[in-house]
């Protein structure tokens, strides 16, 4: 395939879609401003979508010896990209909201339920201890409890 015949917008759109997903999970997810709302990833998807549409139009307008080849290629690449983009949007904006309501969680002004749990060395630690053990030599003003899903 010569460079002139290569449908570069289509391939650029495909590579950009893959790159959007990879950069999100390897890099952007670590930065709160690109994780809490994935604007950078969505912007890359938008550019990729424009390229894919241009590429697909080009494929379908192509006057070639084997026009079906360009068309099938365009359909496959565009479908793969559409799947990735849809999966990302679904995972981020729909599936990620499937969380319990936690209506009986402690509220502001209430006493935090006491607990005793094992730390990473297997030693028991209570909330009362966490609230009283000095930080850098002075009494703590508070404890920030971060419940997380786990390393799985």
């Amino acid at each position: 395939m010569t460079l002139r015949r290569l449908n570069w917008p289509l391939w650029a759109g495909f590579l950009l879609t893959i790159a959007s997903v990879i950069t999100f999970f390897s890099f952007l997810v670590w930065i709160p401003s690109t994780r809490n709302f994935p604007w950078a990833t969505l912007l890359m998807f938008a550019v990729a979508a424009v390229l894919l549409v241009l590429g697909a139009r080009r494929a379908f307008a192509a006057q070639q010896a084997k026009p079906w080849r360009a068309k099938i290629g365009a359909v496959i690449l565009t479908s793969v990209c559409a799947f990735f983009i849809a999966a990302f949007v679904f995972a981020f904006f729909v599936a990620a909201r499937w969380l319990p309501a936690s209506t009986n969680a402690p509220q502001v002004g209430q006493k935090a339920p006491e607990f005793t749990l094992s730390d990473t060395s297997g030693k028991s630690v209570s909330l009362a201890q966490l609230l009283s053990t000095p930080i850098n030599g002075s009494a703590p003003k508070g404890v920030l409890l971060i419940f997380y899903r786990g390393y799985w």
Partner: protein
Amino acid sequence: MCNSELRSIEQSLAAFNEHGIRPVAISVDSPDVSRNLAQQAGYTFPILSDPNVETIRRYDLVHAGAGENGHDIARPAEFLIDSSGTVRWVNLTENYWIRATPEKILEVGRLLK
């Protein structure tokens, strides 16, 4: 995502300590798993294990069947508790990708006495 949040807490640990706030992470992971995580990621704040979701249940944060092999795990949540044991700030995210930033937590933390 969880790791992303814990990492941002670790990066702001000096600021938290300066304001007298002790971050503590809690999950269903065993102490061994948490220790490996802390060592690999360089976390120095306490990480506690609640494998039987007892504390997680008391805080009404059980996400039933959402873990590996259908295990119950915690939904993401943050609580800022003052020295008297009273809750001063709660964040129950509606989307598990979206977490409170250290800056936001410190805004509230500064007001603790």
